[in-house]
């Protein structure tokens, strides 16, 4: 049979041990261990998240680089197009301008030519008149010749009057 005294003391001792350990012993330890366990779990989750983020960032980075390259290509293409446009426009303009200048030059040349021809013509006329004067002066140095001429001229003028009268 269990001894009363031992039973009594065991109750007291165990109750005291339990009270002390339940107050200052195990809850501290288990809560701290739980805390650390949670911390480790959280850290692992964070690490996993960071890893995911990293891989996402890498993907993002790749995407951005690809986009930048595409953009670059586009810009280069556009630039080339623009250049070609400008050049062709410039060429056209130059051609137009050249044509205009040419036309103007032609007009001017024509005008110059016209004026030159008219000048030449008047000078030729003057020269002709002078020459004619000189020739006439030479031929009309005698009266006979003068009379002959006058008669010829009258004849000619008469002929002109006849033809115009018809």
């Amino acid at each position, binding site marked *: 049979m269990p001894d009363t005294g031992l039973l009594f003391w065991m109750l007291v001792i165990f109750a005291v*041990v339990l009270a002390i350990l339940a107050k200052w012993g195990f809850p501290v330890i288990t809560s701290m261990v739980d805390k650390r366990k949670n911390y480790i779990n959280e850290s692992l989750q964070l690490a996993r998240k960071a890893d995911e983020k990293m891989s996402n960032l890498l993907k993002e980075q790749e995407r951005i680089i690809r986009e930048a390259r595409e953009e670059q290509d586009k810009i280069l293409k556009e630039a080339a197009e623009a250049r070609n446009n400008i050049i062709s426009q410039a060429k056209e303009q130059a051609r137009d301008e050249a044509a205009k200048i040419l036309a103007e030059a032609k007009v001017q040349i024509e005008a110059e030519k016209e004026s030159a021809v008219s000048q030449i013509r008047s000078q030729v006329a003057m020269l002709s008149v002078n020459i004619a004067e000189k020739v006439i002066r030479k031929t009309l140095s005698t009266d006979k010749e003068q009379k002959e001429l006058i008669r010829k001229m009258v004849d000619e003028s008469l002929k002109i009057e006849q033809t115009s009268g018809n």
Partner: protein
Amino acid sequence: MGRIIRHIIAIIAAVTFPVAALTANDAKGPAAGDTASLPGEAAAETAEETAPVIDIKAMLFGHIGDSYQWHITKIGDKDIIIPLPVIVHSSTGWHVFLSSRLEEGPYKGLYCAEGGKYDGKIVEKDASGNEIRPLDISITKNVAGLMINGIIVVLLVLACSRWYRKHDVLKEAPTGVAAVLEPVINFINDDVIKAAIPGNHSRKYAPYLLTAFFFILVNNLMGIVPVFPGGANTTGNIAVTLTLALFTFVAVNLFANRHYWKDIFWPEVPWWLKAPVPLIPLTELLGIFTKPFALMIRLFANIMAGHAIILSFVSIIFLTVKLGPVINGTMSVITVVFGIFMDLLEILVAFIQAYVFTMLSAVFIGLAHEGEKSPDGKTEIAENN
């Protein structure tokens, strides 16, 4: 849960049955001894001196029993004894004195009974000359052992919790006592307590179960140590295991939920098993008491038997002295080898029994909280026990 229960059954079957068989043999000892009025420890010692025949039974029960003094050893003719305080309330009131005082003769009518019903206990004579027991709350060897072991448990665990108070767990790994105790506490807390008790309840019971585990473990281990401050057979004493079982009984039944009581008084069995004659409810009601009772007996029997076996082995050396030096020498070698084996086995048993007691307590507490909504919203399905 099913896995745990299978686990438990396997351990119980492995540990209890062989030892129970041994205790059954041992149990015949005191029963026979009582009728033959077994001589007490002091008487046994005097018998050893005078008679060539060694009273093994007296030696054995002297070692695994309780006493008013702590007998450490004997050098020559001189006993090395730590006297312990005797506290009794006799017919003449409270008396407190050292047990060594009794060697000089009766102290105020109190003396140590030799033989009879109260063998080895402090008794006084009533008016008609019969020996009666006064109210006795002496600090006996077992009480002193319990105190020492209790202090050891408290110091160990408080040293561990002190480390956690002084250090940042998020930055440092535990060192010293904390490093030793943390894995054990974690193992019991996670694999036994949290596995057996559903939901948030485990937090409430963890301090008790952990205290019980370490208290039993330290007492078991200190019981194996042969010299002071070890050697007191505390967990091999039924009063000690009774108290522990009582705590578990209270822990199980005091906070049990409705489902637990319904399962006892109106279990889900065919109506004729519970309606006219409440067969199953009666069995279940009995089960409330048999569970802690089994806890009490298991721990007590295992530890007591372990001590008895080791002591029996050791006494073979002294028994074979008269058979001549050859047999005595051979037997001594065998005995020492077996003794070492048994001591190692006892260390294993010390741990297993502490573990089994804690686990079964946790499972019983868990069963008292099954079938209710746990805080995470899942309904625990009550398993048949």
